């Protein structure tokens, strides 16, 4: 996917991605750590706040408890009249502005035999201390069945009641501290009654509710049953318990938390508060009543600063990454722009135009080096192409000259067949295929006189132009000397001496030279290092066994010997150069003399042209596309008899 994108895009993607990753990780870690630190600090703060509130509530409760216990103890020491009793309650109330109401409630018939129930009660009503009798004012349930009486009575110890609405008494929501008092009678302690002091719930909840924590944080107060006493959820106060809220929210963890609270534990927890906000809470018991005080810190507000800071950091980081991206973009562009123009220039060059404007090198970096290398490459290429063009032109000129040379050379050899249509005594056919434009092989035939036909085949060592030039000389000499001297050995000796004189280039040629007497069929021949020709007679075909003479050219005064052979009418003499027998196939195998003999044995023998063409095609077939390495020249002469 990425492999097809441009370098700029790749760089931007990879670098931006990595930076975002690193930044996000750093930011996340920072947020997490800040949060941890904050939470640790928070726990201390929350504990301190909760404990200071607990202490304030506790001190109020303890002072009320102490007063109530004092009254109870005083009830146990000595006797008192009803008047004294009433003034004792009134004084207690007067001296303790925290106490809203106070009563001394007696067990049935315990105050005096005449009254079953007796419970004088003083309380503050509109700033004035009011007196009522609870045995009269409680309409439906006698005071002995109220929790504030019954529970300390059954337990035999001081108790703070669950907050309740004192319907029929002071008619407010309150909590009552009840202390039982006893009478010693015959060694046993007999319960006489309960001393009570009430504190209005308002005075406590106002203190709790007045606590402001962050924006929406709050302090809350729960009773021993988990009843909500002070809380921002006004509807829940004195109506819902922590557990009923947990039930309505199907939240068992909230219930478990509530259980910890009512069991008098303290702790610092992360939870979803009753107002439905993720919060931290520290809760601690108020030991004298078994109530629980809790301070709640909304997490969101707590982390607001951290979040704000993180947001700012995120913004800064984002801007930084944007800047980085821009920087990467510009650097990448500065690299790829010359690269792209180089690529464009290469494309133009590929189409053959080397006069391309290359980007200007401004820097010494890798791209600069590449550009200047490219520049020198272009220069070298241009130079090379120029040379190549010139060389090609020169070669073409030589080529065309060689073509002319080929034509000239070809025109030097007798090419018109039948060569002597007016001489029925013999047939002659020849062919020469040069390996290069011009060859070193040649053949010739001409009449010396009326009856003697001189024919020869020669092979100049080497090929190409030098061979061709040597051949020209040799051929001209052979023809002119042949016509003058008329004997093969003399012709060869004479021409050798001419060639050997001043032969600086050490060139040489092999020559088979023969003269046919057309009247008798006698052939006189001499050989200068040439391949032995074949004689095709009625008895068969065979190679002539020759006296080997030295090649023409290198040494002065070489001696040659004329041999004789008489051809019967129908006999054919087949001359060839080593281009035939030394033709190679791709396996570097030579065509060889035996193959030549076999080809001739198989082939048509009557028509000389057919014979030579067949040998040529067989040699070509054998060579099988291997390049022709040497000139291929063949001459065939058939004696037909004088008056055939």
């Amino acid at each position, binding site marked *: 996917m990425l492999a097809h994108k441009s370098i700029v895009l790749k760089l931007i993607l990879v670098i931006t991605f990595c930076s975002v990753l690193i930044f996000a990780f750093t930011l996340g870690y920072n947020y997490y750590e800040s949060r941890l630190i904050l939470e640790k600090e928070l726990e201390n703060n929350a504990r301190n706040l909760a404990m200071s509130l607990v202490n304030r509530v506790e001190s109020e409760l303890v002072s009320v408890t102490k007063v109530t216990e004092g009254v109870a103890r005083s009830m146990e020491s000595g006797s008192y009249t009803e008047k004294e009793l009433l003034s004792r309650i009134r004084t207690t109330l007067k001296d303790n502005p925290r106490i809203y109401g106070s009563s001394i409630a007696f067990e049935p018939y315990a105050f005096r035999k005449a009254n079953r129930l007796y419970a004088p009660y003083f309380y503050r009503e509109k700033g004035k201390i009011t007196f009522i009798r609870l045995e009269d004012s409680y309409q439906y*349930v006698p005071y002995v*069945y109220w929790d504030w009486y*019954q529970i300390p009575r059954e*337990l035999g110890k001081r*108790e703070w009641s*669950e907050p309740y609405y004192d319907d029929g008494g002071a008619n407010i929501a309150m909590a009552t501290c009840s202390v039982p008092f006893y009478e010693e009678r015959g060694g046993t302690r007999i319960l006489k009654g309960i001393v009570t002091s009430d504190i209005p719930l308002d005075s406590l909840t106002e203190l709790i509710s007045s606590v402001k924590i962050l924006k929406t944080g709050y302090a809350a107060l729960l009773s*021993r049953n988990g009843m909500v006493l002070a809380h921002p959820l006004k509807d829940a106060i004195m109506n819902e318990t922590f557990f009923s809220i947990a*039930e*309505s929210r199907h939240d068992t963890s909230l219930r478990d938390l509530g259980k910890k609270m009512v069991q008098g534990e303290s702790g610092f927890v992360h939870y979803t508060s009753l107002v439905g906000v993720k919060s931290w809470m520290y809760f601690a018991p108020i030991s004298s009543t078994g109530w629980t005080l809790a301070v709640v810190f909304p997490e969101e507000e707590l982390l607001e600063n951290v979040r704000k800071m993180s947001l700012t950091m995120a913004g800064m980081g984002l801007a930084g990454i944007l800047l980085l991206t821009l920087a990467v973009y510009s650097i990448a562009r500065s690299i790829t722009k010359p690269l792209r123009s180089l690529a464009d220039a290469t494309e133009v060059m590929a189409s053959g135009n080397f006069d391309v404007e290359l980007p200007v090198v401004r820097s010494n970096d890798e791209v600069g080096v590449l550009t200047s290398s490219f520049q020198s490459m272009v220069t070298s290429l241009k130079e090379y192409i120029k040379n190549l063009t010139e060389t090609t032109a020169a070669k073409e000129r030589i080529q065309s000259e060689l073509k002319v040379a080929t034509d000239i050379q070809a025109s030097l050899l007798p090419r018109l067949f039948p060569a002597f249509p007016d001489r029925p005594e013999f047939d002659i056919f020849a062919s020469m295929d040069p390996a290069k434009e011009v060859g070193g092989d040649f053949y010739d035939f001409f009449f010396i006189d009326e009856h003697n036909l001189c024919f020869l085949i020669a092979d100049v060592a080497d090929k190409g132009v030098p061979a061709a030039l040597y051949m020209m000389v040799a051929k001209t000499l052979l023809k002119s000397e042949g016509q003058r001297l008329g004997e093969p050995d003399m012709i060869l000796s004479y021409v050798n001496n001419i060639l050997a004189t001043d032969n600086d280039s050490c060139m040489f040629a092999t020559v088979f030279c023969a003269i046919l007497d057309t009247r008798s069929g006698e052939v006189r021949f001499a050989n200068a290092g040439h391949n032995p020709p074949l004689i095709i007679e009625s008895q068969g075909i065979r190679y002539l066994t020759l006296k080997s003479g030295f090649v023409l050219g290198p040494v002065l005064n070489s001696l040659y010997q004329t041999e004789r052979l008489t051809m019967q009418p129908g006999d054919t003499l087949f001359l060839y150069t080593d281009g035939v027998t030394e033709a190679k196939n791709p396996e570097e195998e030579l065509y060889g003399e035996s193959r030549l003999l076999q080809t001739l044995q198989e082939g048509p023998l009557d028509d000389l042209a057919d014979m030579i063409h067949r040998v040529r095609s067989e040699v070509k077939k054998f060579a099988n596309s291997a390049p022709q390495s040497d000139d291929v020249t063949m001459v065939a002469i058939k004696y037909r008899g004088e008056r055939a």
Partner: protein
Amino acid sequence: MLRIAMSYKSPNQMQLFVRFLGILLMFMFCSVYTQSAIAQTLLKKASLIPLWSPQAQFAGYYVALDKGIYARHGIDMTIRNGGAGHSAAESLQSGQADFAVLWLTTALQHRNADTKLVNVSQIIQRSSMMLISKKSSGIRTVEDMKGKKVGLWGGDLSIPPRTLFLRHGIAVKEVPLSHTVNLFLRGGIDVTSAMWYNEYHVILNSGVDAEQLNAVFLSEQGMNFPEDGLYTLEKTITRDSALVDAFVSASLEGWQYAFAHPDEALEIVIKYMHLAQVPANRIHQKWMLDRMQDLVKPGKGKGGMGTLNSMDYEAVGNTMQREGLIQSYPDYTAFSRRSNARP
């Protein structure tokens, strides 16, 4: 209408149309007026007093009132406030209420004391009373309660547990119970009486888990005393038996509607609680309504909803007579009026 009026071209036609419209409107007004007047005159006034102040225990009646089911059955119903100081039995006796929700035990005691009241429908089919102890106290069975402090409510509500203790031949230290569960929670008593639909849930929602409690259902101890039933005086039936039929039908229909639409029923109950200025704890009322559904549903082979099972009746009567709470009890047919009118 407007488009038709606009299409009238001549003023004569227009006047005719306006006059017709006026007559039509007058006729419609008169018919609505007379209909409501007829409805008002047709509704019979009646009143019901429940055992206690408004709560889901009486959801069926408040739903029947609020949804106009009583009115549909031709009753202009008033539900009086029950609760402390308002004895349902006394209100029925004195004629302050035409109908009352009473326990079967209460009703039999009053019948024994010559109040001619009749069960016209039995709503709660079985006893919902429990005796609850903390597992930590080691009390598991009724026998374990011997000599322990047991909280009992006053009046008729103490009959079933007392009968149970008598039957098991054990004596307990009775402690009178008020309306809170605090005495039990603080350990002032070892065992407390509780109603499954009420106090049991209050205890749970004071932070005590069900697993920490040992709860004995009286109904599982052979003390299946059917509780809330609808009662009226014999003379009311004699005077207007159709009214009684209509009342029973409408009340049962109210219950059925409440069970079919618990959320709506809960809203209605809470509305009446607010009207009576009683603190309303929604989840507690929901629990109560759910339990009422369990309790109102008749047991297998015990007849339809609202039926007083004759065997249950005999068992309660017999037990009360044996325990000396009543001298005698009337025949089932004399005590229970099976109305043909079904919801």
